[in-house]
């Protein structure tokens, strides 16, 4: 039989067809967006060493969905583009390597339903959905710890969006410093982007915050209150932690009108203010069981417009 270059060999075996069908299963992975952090700083790990860590605030109204179609050729094709999604591309390669399929290739599609310019485009969200899609294509189930390790390898520093429970996560080493064994308490958030032109921090170029000894120690009370707040499922305590973390980190990546935003939160009766420590979004946190909730959130939206932040999004975390 004549063979033309570039065409696959003829298939004449049913088992072979079945195998190919399995091999070409489309893997799908999704990951919710996040809205920066509730806490970020330096923390003592179990060995008594000090390490960088954070607690991510998920933003479940938006998602990234990744689809991965394995191909026998070693090339990896990425849509919308490999350059724009280089961390996701790296994550796909690392996942193939992790699952003993180095040298394999495929088509990776990334779709994100968060609106442009809201500062919610997160490289970790792309990376995590990609890892999940690649693993799914081969029907492999990865633990959150494994996803975290691949994510950190792919992008130097990653947030902790891959964990379902609240964790204090070492974003540069990719391990859980402390797990809280339950979700964050229910919280309502009015989020907004302080800088629509913000392109994101390149973790490779941006030097990490250099904290002094007394700044490092100041994260300890915040961690204690966070733990109590998660244990008691009390948004008031989490709000205090978030506000103080934002304040302690303001000098490293300043948010415009920060003092005004803090004052606004206090005046309206929010439980706190959280920021993206390496992004531009800010959230005002409310207690969902507050009987004045709707009125307070409406007031916040109006006051934010006055401050020059016209576009707000509202979301909720935690189960009621």
């Amino acid at each position, binding site marked *: 039989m004549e063979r033309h270059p570039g065409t696959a060999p003829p298939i004449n075996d049913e088992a072979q067809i079945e195998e190919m069908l399995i091999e070409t299963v489309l893997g799908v992975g999704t990951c919710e967006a996040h809205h920066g952090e509730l806490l970020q700083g330096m923390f003592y790990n179990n060995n008594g060493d000090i390490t960088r860590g954070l607690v991510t605030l998920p933003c479940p109204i938006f998602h990234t969905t990744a689809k991965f179609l394995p191909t026998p050729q070693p090339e990896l094709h990425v849509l919308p583009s490999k350059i724009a999604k280089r961390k996701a591309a790296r994550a796909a390669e690392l996942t193939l390597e992790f699952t003993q399929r180095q040298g394999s290739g495929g088509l990776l599609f990334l779709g994100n339903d968060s609106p442009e310019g809201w500062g919610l485009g997160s490289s970790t969200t792309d990376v995590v959905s990609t890892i999940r899609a690649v693993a799914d294509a081969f029907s492999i189930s990865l633990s959150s710890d494994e996803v975290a390790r691949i994510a950190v390898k792919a992008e130097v520093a990653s947030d902790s969006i891959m964990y379902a429970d609240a964790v204090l996560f070492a974003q540069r080493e990719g391990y859980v410093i402390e*797990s809280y*064994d339950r979700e964050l308490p229910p919280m309502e958030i009015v989020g907004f982007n302080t800088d629509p032109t913000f392109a994101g921090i390149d973790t490779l170029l941006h030097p990490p915050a250099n904290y002094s*000894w*007394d700044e490092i*120690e*100041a994260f*300890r*009370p*915040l*961690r*204690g*209150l966070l*733990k*109590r*707040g998660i244990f*008691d499922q*009390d948004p008031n*305590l989490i709000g*205090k*932690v978030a506000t*103080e973390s934002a304040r302690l980190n303001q000098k490293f990546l300043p948010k415009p009108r920060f003092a005004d935003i803090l004052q606004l939160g206090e005046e309206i009766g929010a439980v706190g203010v959280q920021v993206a420590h390496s992004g531009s979004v800010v959230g005002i946190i409310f207690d969902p069981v507050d009987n004045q909730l709707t009125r307070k959130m409406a007031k916040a939206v109006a006051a934010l417009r006055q401050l020059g932040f016209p576009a707000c999004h509202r979301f909720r975390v935690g189960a009621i």
Partner: protein
Amino acid sequence: MVTRVVHNSPIEASLLPTFIRLAKNLVAATFGFMKLIPATFILEQAEKDERLKAGKIIETTSGPFGLALAIVAAQRNYSLTLLCPKGVDPAILEQMANLGAKVEVLLDQQECIDQIQARRSKDRELFWPSQYHNPQNSGSYAGVAEAILEAMGNVDCLIGAVGSGGSLCGTGKYLRLVGQDLRVVAVDAMGSVLFGKSSVPGRLPGMGNGVMPTTLEHRMVDEVHWVTSSEALCAARRLHKFHGMCMGTSSGAAFLASSWWASKNPDKTAVVFFPDHSSRLFTSLFCKETLQAADLWLDELPSEPKEISHPREESNRWSRLEWARRSLNSWELAREASE
């Protein structure tokens, strides 16, 4: 998930308090030996900054801090010299020596400080922790604030005896990061200079001070109680009688002030520091004859403090002043004294 752990040393095991409820709205933070916290932290920070490369430490002390340094220095093989003013409890001197510290007894606090400065000018590698002036003394209490917040969430009031001010101001500062309204109540010894009274010799060790430490931040303090030695001893016996806890006299004094505060503020939650067990005290809380001979025995405690409106207002019993986060200077003590 948190599991119980085995500690690697008694120092590590002593760095965090145990919380014990004394009343509905009053919780004691009890320590095996609180001074291990600043001693460990100051030495670890010095190691990180390479100020301890020569491994030689000098400090002046009248008791617990020197003893804590001696414990940590012995574990880490540092050479420690402790200059003590006359009058330090001989039992404590013996313990320091047993831990390998070189103990020298000098005339008074001033001579000790002069000596440290003279020796450090000759030997620049000699590390001086300087607990009364080192911000890392109060800075070492972040873990205590963390433990309080983790155990209790909201706290309205922090009450503690003051010597260097490190534990009260340090913990208070860290707690106020997440609660500006926290009330800080200092418990001082009658005859101590910390909150503007004139110095009177013969105070019990462990509380108050004859010199003014810069680690004490007066502007953090809302309320001051002064307690006499005999009241503190009697309160320590009461703590033992009602709660079975055998703590030192500074704990006794703090217990007296905190019990009163908690009963006056039933809707607020208070934490009180019990820094130390009484086991290291040379004179037992319970030696009635010895204490009577020294005029330090009381059978009954007053139920209320005497309210005073100025630090220099005369009082020879448990007294209370609304300090209102003022500086020491704002009380114009020099003018008062000259009038």
